[in-house]
């Protein structure tokens, strides 16, 4: 059920000292009540005075999410002029993410891009002379959100959601056509069938939710591009990295893996690995496209792993690569360290001021060092990735949760023996929520489905 109370992470999504999750709206205090346990006393958040700070814990049921400071600002004395609660938690991407998810679970909805500012403005908090900049904020954030949200979805997930939506709309259309034209179309006994279909849908959505928890929904993580001349050992490295993938192996059932991209966890850090070997394969066919693609990937990369072959001399290919990664965050892997070195660490370091790791794909050495290096770079903030990916993920996860809730409501209606017209209300909500993940609204979908699939009377 959508509320008008919104929440978002107010600080940058990086591993800094403190993170802030902000809640604003009519039910902000009630939402906080549901999750906050003060260290001292038993006072409810809604009973606490405005402009006070409280120390305690955020709990999701039995589980403690984080130790926090809670700031209460009651309407109209807040930025948005609505009841506002700010939760100061430990910095750290995962903690903030988890905290926001908890807030959403207990009754807030994810804020639209620029929504806090919009509310502040509409409630008269921001001077009218600033209207233009408010519009700019809204537009910029929306442009970004539009570009990012769907493009970050994995192709397989996108297809899965489209598939689920098609099933949902078909059921609604069937129910509605029967309600509209009961003398032509009968839905007697349909409840049992729908129950089975809804159970299946729910399982699928639950699967997607698990994937979302494991970061498998979005192409999130540090965009890591592997480059190197042919035969330098890129594919071997890829195999080692993918082979080492421990934490998350469950892929979404019935989907194919991206050929070019793999997501792995290395030392607890998500890497989105792009093997340019794949690009090279296409180069023969349409050389230009291949080259442009390589460049594009390099530009987008948060981190470049350059695999150099120590057993051969640096050639034209290597020099080109070295030139193109001068300004990028990069790690050099000096592969084939088990063989006699022709290209040495010294030769390379004279051309490129980057960390160089000696590595042997064959003997599987150097991987630990690579892992440590990447981890250090990440924790020191040398490499990071786009905040918005996390935000998008939370938004989409929230939509999946809502979808699941709606499907559960359908099941409940069936079990309670409610008439069929009640099923389609919650099915429609599920359809809308799924649509919001892939950026599609409902529009005339239902009417179109009814007329194209069911033969209506007169």
């Amino acid at each position, binding site marked *: *059920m*959508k509320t*008008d109370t919104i929440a978002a992470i107010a600080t940058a999504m990086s591993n800094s000292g403190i993170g802030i999750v902000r809640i604003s709206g009519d039910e902000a205090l009630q939402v906080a009540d549901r999750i906050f346990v003060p260290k001292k006393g038993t006072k409810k958040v809604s009973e606490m005075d405005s402009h006070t700070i409280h120390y305690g814990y955020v709990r999701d049921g039995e589980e403690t999410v984080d130790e926090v400071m809670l700031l209460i600002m009651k309407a109209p004395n807040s930025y948005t002029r609505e009841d506002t609660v700010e939760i100061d938690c430990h910095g750290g991407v995962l903690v903030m993410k988890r905290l926001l998810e908890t807030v959403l679970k207990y009754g807030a909805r994810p804020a*639209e*891009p*620029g*929504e806090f500012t*919009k509310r502040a*403005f*509409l409630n008269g908090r921001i001077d*009218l002379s600033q*209207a*233009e900049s*408010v*519009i*700019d904020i*809204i*537009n910029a954030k*929306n442009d970004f959100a539009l570009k990012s949200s769907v493009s970050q979805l994995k192709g397989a997930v996108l297809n899965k959601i489209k598939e689920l939506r098609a099933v949902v709309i078909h059921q*609604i259309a069937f129910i*509605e056509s029967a*309600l*509209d*034209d*009961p*003398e*032509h179309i009968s839905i007697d006994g349909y409840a049992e069938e729908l129950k089975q279909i809804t159970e299946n849908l729910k399982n699928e959505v639950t699967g997607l939710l698990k994937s979302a928890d494991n970061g498998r929904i979005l192409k999130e993580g540090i965009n890591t591009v592997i480059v190197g001349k042919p035969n330098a050992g890129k594919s071997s490295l890829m195999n080692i990295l993918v082979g080492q993938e421990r934490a998350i192996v469950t892929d979404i059932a019935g989907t194919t893996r991206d050929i070019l991209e793999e997501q792995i966890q290395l030392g607890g850090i998500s890497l989105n690995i792009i093997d340019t070997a794949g690009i090279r394969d296409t180069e023969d066919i349409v050389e230009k496209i291949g080259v442009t693609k390589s460049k594009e990937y390099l530009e987008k990369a948060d981190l470049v792993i350059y695999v150099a072959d120590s057993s051969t001399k640096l050639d034209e290919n290597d020099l080109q690569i070295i030139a193109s990664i001068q300004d990028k965050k990069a790690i050099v892997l000096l592969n084939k360290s088990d063989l006699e070195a022709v290209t040495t660490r010294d030769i390379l370091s004279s051309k490129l001021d980057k960390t160089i790791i000696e590595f042997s794909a064959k003997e599987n050495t150097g991987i630990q060092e690579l892992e440590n290096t990447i981890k250090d770079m990440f924790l020191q903030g040398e490499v990071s990735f786009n905040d918005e990916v996390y935000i998008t993920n939370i938004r989409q996860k929230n939509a999946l949760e809502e979808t699941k809730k709606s499907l559960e409501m359908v099941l409940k209606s069936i079990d*309670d*023996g*409610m*008439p*069929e*017209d*009640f099923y*389609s*209300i919650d099915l429609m909500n599920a359809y809308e929520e799924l649509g919001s993940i892939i950026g599609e609204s409902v*529009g*005339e979908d*239902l*009417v179109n489905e*009814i*007329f194209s699939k069911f*033969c*209506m*009377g*007169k």
Partner: protein
Amino acid sequence: MPVVEEYYDVAVVGAGHAGCEAALACARLGLETIIFTVSIESIAMMPCNPNIGGSSKGHLVREIDALGGQMGINIDKTFIQSKMLNKSKGPAVHSLRAQADKAAYSMEMRKTLENTDHLTVRQAEVSEIIVEDHQLRGVKTFSGAVYYCKAAVLCTGTYLNARCLYGDVVNHTGPNGLQAANHLTDSLVKNGIEMFRFKTGTPARMDKRTIDFSKMTEQFGDEKIVPFSFTTDPEDVQIDQVSCWLTYTNPETHRIIRENLERSPLFSGMIEGTGPRYCPSIEDKVVKFAEKDRHQVFIEPEGINTNEMYVGGMSSSLPEDVQYAMYRTVPGLEHAKIVRNAYAIEYDCINPRQLYPSLEFKEIHGLFSGGQFNGSSGYEEAAAQGLIAGINAAMKIKGREPLILDRSESYIGVLIDDLVTKDNHEPYRMMTSRAEYRLLLRQDNADLRLTKKGYEAGLISRERYERVVWKEKMIEEEIRRVESINIGANASVQSLLESFGSQPLNTGTGLAELIRRPELNYDMLAPIDPDRPELPDDVREQVNINIKYEGYIRRQIKQVKQFKKLENKKLPKNLDYDQVSGLRMEAQQKLNLYQPVSIGQASRISGVSPADISVLLVYLEQLHYKEKKANESVGQE
């Protein structure tokens, strides 16, 4: 040359279901009104199906009635069979449908028009609208007579440049061979109105004496008949009913149709108009749903004093000989004689986005329109718009605010909002699935939702209004009482539950909880509720529904609250959206074209994104601020 010149407040063009409601509303509100029709005999004619109501359409009739319209009263007086559809489903989709005696329906409405004060009925073809400087001044008939008026309501139905087709036969007439209106379109186009061309169709009528009903299944009406109008005494409608009959097409029917498809004007491309998808011709059904080897056919009487029978489900524009061949493959119709051929009809209508939700043209003040002219289809949809257009023509003349119903308070609101806001590419039909708050928009509570609006407009008597206020109070008190009652697990309770096949109680529970059990209801539990007051049927019905579906209803009420927020943010008229910086180009174009009245309406225009809506909200806030400042400075001077 001397010409006839007359003066009225309102001129209504067309006396079909929309025109009748429009004219009656204006005249009843005390305005001198004239209604034009090409044929007095065709007032409130039903040129297609012989029934009123049905899924979602029944809701419309109830709403028309609650606002003070005529359709419900008229059908209650002239129906010959009645049925509540979807009775086994939830209350939101219960829909009343009545078979009409067509001739009686038409005659009864004609009698009502002829005996309404301030109303003049005139047989003439209106060929021009007279507009000066974006203001309607009057209408002119084909004979040259001029009728000056302050407002006009166009309800031309399917008559504008109409042609009827079957096979290669083309008749340049309106429905039933009536004279078409061939001149008005030119005048509308000259005045800058954008026209569409739509198409619809009707099946053949058969001679009852030539039908073998023994091969069909009889379809009876309900045992207990419920009237449409809230003003009709249920006792008065318990009549002897006439039956309908069910039969089916078969593979032979479909073979004949398939073999003759190229002779249909639809498939040959002779028909230019866009037809509705929900009301397909039998040839459409056979092509589109090729996997079905039979389709239902309902044989329905057209009236008591005629032998004509309507062949529901088999509208067609195939040639006469193919019609004979195909109809005669249907069991029971082997020797049937056709009284009237099936045909398709094409007609001019408008792109309804040129209208405000008040149904007034944005570019021509004082010009209103309703019904099929606005791109809808169906008698009930037409009547609903006619009523609103009529009321708003009257409000305009009286200098009052227009009556605009929104999507959360009525099907009429959904209907009009869809017409004026969404891209409309086919004749629009009402459906319950179009109403997002349908749990609240039930046919059983139309009086509670709309009587007050009808009263404020001036079409509902004080007495009727007060009855609704009293009913509301009774419902509220009884719900409160029921919710406070606890039921113990005693013997009489257990035996009552058992008698209804309901699980016995383990411990005490609330009476409301028991009412929510699917197998129980409010009335059934009367024996264990000794303090229950004596209440009328309609109050008990509301108490039952409100308690039984309380959770769902509460959720929808919450959604409506959100919806209303944007609906109540009004946008200024004639705003130049090119001047609103921050809107995307597509949104600017669409908003300029549609000129929505509220942010809510703007949000439903395709091509306007949530970000555009945020920009509009900010813009609106700026505008209000500036206005406030301007007012303050005027006050200081």
